């Protein structure tokens, strides 16, 4: 296993794998995301995000940037120009801020990934002006990053797994919430009882990170030692 990457760091290739996995999950869940959006929004979330992530993966296959900041600038700008609606600027801002915080490096350690994730979520909060409890992406992203930060000492793979679990718990917690941001807020109390589509796609983003980092670090995987 000597050819494997250092378990303490995440390389550009693994970050690209994260984006590819996110694109695949969004594509698989496209109709589910759109159906969730039909209940409390305007029935286009899965379609729009799928279109955007397909464009991202195509761009990265045509020309893969060498550094983390350049990679995520490409990702963010592609999403901003292809997704539209509110999710374009929100996901676009997440990746743009993530890349800026990471800087012109070709790998991130566990702490560097924490800093970038925190910056990305900060960008989403600033862009959408949403707080936890508003029934938005933030309800999945905020607990996810907090969980990552708590587990940062155990390395990026374990921290990402913890983040993914927290994101899914945060996603499920949006069901009883009354929406206070976005189009769903026009429904007021009628928005309660529905899973938030943005929190659902954000949980996929963290699931993709955990999946992309899992198995690439065999030294820490059960049964492989």
């Amino acid at each position, binding site marked *: 296993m000597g050819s494997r990457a250092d378990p303490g760091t995440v390389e550009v290739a693994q970050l690209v794998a994260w984006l590819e996995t996110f694109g695949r999950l969004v594509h698989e869940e496209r109709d589910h995301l759109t159906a969730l959006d039909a209940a409390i929004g*305007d*029935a*286009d979330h899965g379609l*729009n995000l799928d279109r955007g992530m397909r464009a991202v993966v195509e761009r990265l296959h045509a020309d893969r940037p060498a550094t983390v900041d350049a990679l995520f600038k490409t990702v963010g700008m592609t999403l*901003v*120009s*292809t*997704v*539209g*609606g*509110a999710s*374009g*600027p*929100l996901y*676009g*801002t997440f990746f743009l801020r993530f890349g800026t915080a990471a800087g012109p490096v070709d790998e991130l350690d566990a702490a560097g990934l924490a800093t970038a994730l925190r910056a990305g979520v900060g960008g989403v909060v600033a*862009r*959408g002006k949403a707080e936890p409890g508003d029934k938005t992406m933030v309800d999945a992203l905020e607990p996810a990053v907090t969980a990552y930060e708590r587990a940062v000492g155990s390395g990026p793979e374990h921290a990402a797994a913890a983040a993914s679990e927290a994101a899914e718990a945060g996603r499920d917690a949006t069901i009883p919430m*009354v929406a*206070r*941001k*976005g*189009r769903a*807020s*026009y*429904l*007021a109390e*009628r928005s309660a009882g529905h899973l938030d589509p943005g929190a659902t796609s954000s949980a996929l983003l963290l699931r993709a990170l955990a999946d992309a980092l899992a198995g690439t670090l065999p030294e820490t995987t059960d049964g492989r030692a």
Partner: protein
Amino acid sequence: MKKLVNDPQHVVTDALVGVEAAYLGRLAVDHEHRVVYRADAPVAGKVALVSGGGSGHEPLHGGFVGPGMLDAACAGEVFTSPTPDQVLAADQHVDAGAGILHIVKNYTGDVMNFDMAVELAEGGSPIATVVTNDDVAVEDSLYTAGRRGIGVTVVVEKIAGAAAEGRRDLSAVADVARRVNDNGRSMGVALTSCTVPAVGRPTFDLAEDELEIGVGIHGEPGRSRGRLGTASEVAEQLVVPITDDLDFTGAPVIAMLSGLGGTPLIELYLMYGEIARILGRRNVTVARTLVGNYITSLEMAGCSLTLVRADDELLDLWDAPVDTPGLRWGA
């Protein structure tokens, strides 16, 4: 679905081809970025007015591009906000160096995309933004995305356009635009739903005898759903929430009754007669009136009433010449 389209996925692209053909020499179209702009842009020394939003509300916004009103309008997909690169392209087409005013309707996506465009802009003139939010059907509170921008946007674009044409500077044009918005209120009702071409089925269901009160221009739900009464009763349902929200007495008022796309003018005139009677009874003095289709929701049947509490200055700007496909006088 029964519509005059070639491919339901390409309605916006194809419509812009038609806009270009119909207004050759007056309007130019950037097809890559879906921007409609004044053929004579940039206009020297003038603050440039840029707006945009989802398509399906025509003539808003592309139909209000021309001397005395907008310099450019970005066309998003039907009922979907334009993207920042579209806004950046629009700004570049019309920037004369005197500043740019973005006029944005208050929807989460529209506000974010225009905000990002401002952040991503490199060089170019300073940009100011005015967000319209006149729909009294939505509670304006910390617990919602705020009131939606609807009919007042037309009045803002007209009056700010006249101010810019008069070579006022950016902050003065932005101030007058905000003043119009702050003094404007709107309320709409729908009799039928609309069908987004790419979706192919009606956005919502409304029974034959039902009325959606306070409907949004994308078919968003309103305040309530009721039995469709007489025109006189519907006029009350439009006027009362507006005049309860802001005092319109003691000032000249600009009144606009816009059809939502599927209501014939004869019904709009009939409705306006009822509205004028109710306003008179409430001591509201209408100084200027506009009745027609100005901000629509595809083929939705219904109408939207906008009142703006004006003053002599705003009336002068309203009366100034305008020469656009959707609004034209004095030119």
